[in-house]
């Protein structure tokens, strides 16, 4: 199972002032604050840690349900420049982060799932309103699944369950988890 989260760096710089008093203490552990203080690029580190937490939260809520806001309890451990672990309630998720100049993108996986193949796509978004962007992303997911499986597009749809968790439905009997993220001018999805 996968979860993902993306941050548009330019938009984040205008939307979020993580340097404001109290901000980092509310969401980051002491260890994570150390990572930020020691980072050559603190902004990139803040959003790397944040997307790690968010992507792990997405898997957790898909697995166990519920909705809550406890970013600080999702503890990040950095392993390499790109990989890490997020621990929450004795569960660990593995993460891989792409730290590009204009965006930070993390995919989290359930532990032991590193050999399981999944589809991943990250792309720029047209500058329109939120609802049109959602349609654009859904179309991309359907086109991607169509090109890989050969299933007819008319038989593929993307739907959210009552908790707002997205799934891809195919031929009305097959239901596959999809994780979707968008921020500013970037979006991404994973299937499986």
């Amino acid at each position, binding site marked *: 199972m996968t979860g993902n989260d993306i941050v548009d760096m330019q938009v984040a710089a205008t939307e*979020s002032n993580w340097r*404001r008093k*109290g901000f980092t203490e*509310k*969401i980051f552990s002491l260890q994570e604050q150390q990572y930020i203080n020691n980072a050559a690029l603190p902004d990139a580190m803040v959003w790397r840690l*944040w997307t790690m937490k968010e992507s792990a939260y997405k898997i957790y809520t898909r697995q166990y349900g519920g909705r809550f806001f406890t970013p600080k309890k999702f503890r990040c451990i950095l392993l390499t420049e790109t990989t890490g672990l997020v621990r929450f309630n004795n569960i660990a998720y593995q993460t891989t982060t792409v730290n590009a100049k204009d965006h930070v993108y993390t995919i989290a996986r359930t532990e032991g799932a590193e050999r399981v193949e999944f589809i991943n796509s990250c792309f720029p978004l047209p500058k329109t309103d*939120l609802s049109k962007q959602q349609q654009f992303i859904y179309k991309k997911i359907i086109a991607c699944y169509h090109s890989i499986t050969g299933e007819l597009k008319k038989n593929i749809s993307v739907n959210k369950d009552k908790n707002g968790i997205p799934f891809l439905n195919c031929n009305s009997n097959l239901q596959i988890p999809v994780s979707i993220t968008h921020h500013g001018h970037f979006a991404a999805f994973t299937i499986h």
Partner: protein
Amino acid sequence: MTKEELIDKLKGIVKPYVKNEEGFNNLDENTDFLNDLKINSANLVDVILDIENEFDIIIDNESMEKMLHVKAAMEIINAKLSEK
């Protein structure tokens, strides 16, 4: 503070972070910060810090966990104010 006054104060606090104006215009107790107002989750931290500053209270981690909609925010603010 009346319920209406509290909702008005909250409206002022969340306004800069709202991405869905329609949700904002219809804001009431049942409004969800993320789903209805499309506030991004990093800005939810700002909302919480702004509430702390506005009401001069501290929102601990346990309370923060529930801060997903207006109703929870109102309950938490009232509880913290009564502790003062």
